[in-house]
């Protein structure tokens, strides 16, 4: 691994100042589970690595206030998966966090890192999209809030400016009962990169949201405004039409060695159907529990 300058700012202002003055030659280090691989293989060659884990504003913390769950940028997957609030309100996010890598990886990989790498296969992206997350970013001109649906640009690129960093992720607690699930396809049952990663939610109002990744340059979010998918009495044919429309954005790479485009598309459809069914079941369970 090539050497670099290492900075460990202890305030957000210092971090932003470093980013602002060194910009493109820097790399932010959160969990490091991706960055350190890239430092070693030479695909990342920063002049400076900025370790953000000692910035108080980014600290690993999950708190709920006024119907919004705020997740500190450096919250690791293991904590996300185990957190009671996340599991209660955002079960699919907890599920996604629990399948990222091994225990060792989940103890290091952060929520901000997972989305800032902008890997199309990022497992937390589909649930964050489905749950309407907002990315809180800080830069030289203060902070701004970016809807997650505007965050991913393409593989490896987000809408963050070079001098901005993610401080936290906000998740609005669903106003109505919601059933949701995260599913993925991998080449083996043990930890693996997803060849399809998908999240589906259904709420009491009959709105189905579906987000999927690893089948194109960025994760995609779709919403069924017709309420057909959530309608138990709607005919299967009608549901298929809606689902097909939702998958129109998928364009899996032909170059990938992990799965062929045909297989990914077939699995996207299969997981979509399975996820929808599970989401509806979970919604019904919650209704039952409330009744």
């Amino acid at each position, binding site marked *: 691994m090539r050497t670099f300058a290492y900075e460990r700012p202890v305030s957000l202002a210092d971090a932003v100042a470093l980013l602002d003055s060194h910009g493109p030659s820097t790399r932010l280090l959160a969990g490091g589970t991706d960055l350190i691989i890239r430092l070693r293989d030479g695909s990342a060659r920063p002049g400076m690595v900025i370790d953000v884990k000692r910035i108080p504003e980014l600290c690993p913390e999950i708190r709920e206030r006024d119907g919004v769950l705020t997740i500190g940028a450096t919250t690791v997957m293991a904590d996300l998966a185990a957190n009671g609030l996340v599991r209660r309100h955002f079960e699919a996010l907890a599920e996604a966090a629990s399948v990222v890598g091994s225990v060792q990886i989940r103890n290091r990989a952060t929520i901000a890192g997972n989305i800032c790498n902008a890997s199309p296969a990022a497992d937390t992206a589909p649930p964050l999209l489905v749950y309407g997350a907002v990315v809180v970013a800080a830069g030289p001109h203060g902070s701004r809030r970016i809807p997650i649906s505007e965050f991913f640009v393409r593989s490896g690129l987000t809408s963050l400016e070079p001098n901005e960093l993610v401080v936290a992720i906000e998740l609005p607690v669903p106003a109505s009962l919601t059933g949701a699930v995260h599913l993925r396809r991998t080449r*083996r*049952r043990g930890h693996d990169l997803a060849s399809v990663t998908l999240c589906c939610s259904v709420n009491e109002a009959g709105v189905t949201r579906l987000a999927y990744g690893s089948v194109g340059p960025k994760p995609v979010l779709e919403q069924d405004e017709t309420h057909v998918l959530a309608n138990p009495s709607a005919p299967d044919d009608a549901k298929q039409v809606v689902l097909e429309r939702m998958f129109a954005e998928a364009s899996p790479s032909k170059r990938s060695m992990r799965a062929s485009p045909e*297989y990914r598309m077939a699995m996207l459809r*299969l997981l979509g159907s399975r996820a929808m069914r599970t989401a509806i079941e979970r919604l019904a369970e919650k209704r039952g529990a409330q009744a």
Partner: protein
Amino acid sequence: MSASSIGSSPNRVGGIGRVSGLQEYVADVRLAGVLEAKLVTLDCARAKIISIDTSEAEQVPGVRLVMTAADLPQPMPRFGPQLEDRPVIAVDETKYHGEPVAIVAADTKDAAEEGARLVHVEYEELPAVFTLAAALDPDAPLVQDPSLRPKDPLASTNVLREHHVDWGDIEAAHADVVVENTYSFPIVTHFAIEPHAFIAAPDDNGIAVWSSIQHPYWLQRILAKLLDLPLSKVRVLAPDPGGAFGGKQHAKYEPLVAFAAIRAGRPVRLVLSLEQTFQAVRRAATEIRVRTGFTIDGKLAFQDIKADYLIGAYCDIADRVVGKGSYPGAGPYNVPAVRIFARSILSHTTPSTAFRGFGNPQVNWAVESNIDEGARVLGIDRLEIRLRNLARKGDPFIPFDTPADGDWEQTLRRAAEMIEWGKPLAPGHGRGIALGIKSGPTTGLSYSTVRLLADGSVAIYAGTSDMGQGARTIFAQIAAEELGAPLDAIRVVMGDTAIVPYDQQTSASRSTVLMGNSVLKACSSIQAQIRTMAARLHGIDESAITVERGVVRLPGRELRLMEVLKPGLGKLGGELIGNGETRKDGDADHPLGGAAAFFELNCTAVEAEVDEGTGDISIVRHVTVSDVGTAINRLQVQMQDEGAAIMGLGHTLMEHFIYDETGRIRNLGAIDYRIPTTMDLPLEMRSETIENADGPGPYGAKGMSEGALLCVAAATAAAVREATGVAIRDLPLTPERVWRALRERGGRANAGTNDDGES
């Protein structure tokens, strides 16, 4: 007298070091003044080297040596266990992705890495052949310089060698049904968790070389020849390998590191990255065409097998793998007519080498699968057809080899029982059963020395490598049995050619039998000396005395061994020394150069469930039964069989190298080369042994540890076939491959439009 340790499961000798972190592997060896080395490689499969500029690298502070082909003797020294075709370092041309063109040694790894980055190589990428079809194309570039193979009529092709095994008359054989299919087995890699590591140091006018190697004495011979040194001046130290599986049998970069150390005048260490290890060792991909003839009552009429093995750019031991791996291809059956034609095909890929199963799993996959096909055509149960053809003990099933050396029907029947063959299956489930056989060693030479020390403790010197199979423990158990020393008072010294007597090699599941017998003989020699002592001390005839498990029996009385040893050794103390030798000479007229010392026979049976939506295979139950003669250490036998079974599931379900269109390995590294984790195991694994004490090893033991891998693929694919109706003839059975096969089958597989497959 203590209870016999044979057949029990005492803790692993060397285990405490392994659980405490103190076990020293090559990368852990502390050595003053050692330079750390890095390789310079090109990111292409084949290239013409135009020039190498080392000047910038040499300027890096801390860099002590930059060595290329230009710094080595001319012509470039070449080596190899079969053919001396591998250059110490690439000269003029690289022939596989990752072949080194320079080595940089420096005070620190950082400096070596920096230096390696700054070696500038001007090269021209050349077209590479990395598939069987491309290598066999008449217009294909030749992988080997024909001048390396003078007088060889095949020298102008990429066929390195052809192997023929024939008996009976195929053309005249009467068959009612003939089934012909082609099967493929991919390139897989060993993935020992310890990446290969080497150290060389100038030593006493010679050289000392540390390597995580299975055959230290073979390496010693190769180094002595390359460096023109007497054997006594080449000291090979072989710390226990952290997994080897055949990949660490033969010299790879030891000669390069040795030349570097001599040139630097200092010790040099090279630890490969896992990626470089993947580029250093792998199993041969194989395409097997099988034509099987059956009579109407399910008897095998003939087997006509053609197997093309895709070996690499240099021979290594690959051609022996082809010859020995295809040889028992017709299986443990009485087949009246057999024709096996196997070829070693060179390619611009990593030299393929020995890998657990040694070329047998490939042919087994095809032949066992084809027997199932025949059974289906004939409407005969797949277990039944095997029973009808299986060789019974003593049958000359390979006419010019050792007759069937076990009650193999017992093995087959036990596995069938354990998988509940014939019982109704849940929907989406299927069963498969297959037999695997492999020839044990055809030649061998193992010396050992056992020292019975003055206090009754024991030191054993045996040149086997303990790479996890547990050879130390076996030898200690033998000495404990024969000399009565408690296991924790036995030291087993291995891995140093300057101290330990010669052993030919650690391979072919030989060590329990060959070195085990050698240790047994060394112990017998000590027992004889004890008898002589007792006779002298007590004034009786030696023939009236027996020694067993630390007890000396004289007429009418028993003495503890110490009661003889102590007075026998007298005031000066000292020790008794026994030497053992096991020799299995070859037979020049035999197709393999010698008959099998024993056969490894295994039956694997699998129950699998297939998710027709995704193509996922779940192994519900995996049964593996091996005929081991006698299990000297029950737990170690179980671990070896289950470990082999899991490794077999790796190549069956997920492992394969993927190449790009220019011949580079795309899934180079642990992220995309998938092997089984804790989550990928059969829901239930059951392993058992058949023990009739009918092996040639100590206490009736046979060699084992490869058997349980041999037929995993065939058994699994057969289960998938029963579950789904689709026959898949290419490995691995990835979910996508199964899904595709289901889609082609049509019918129930309709992934996507609706959910399915979950019963």
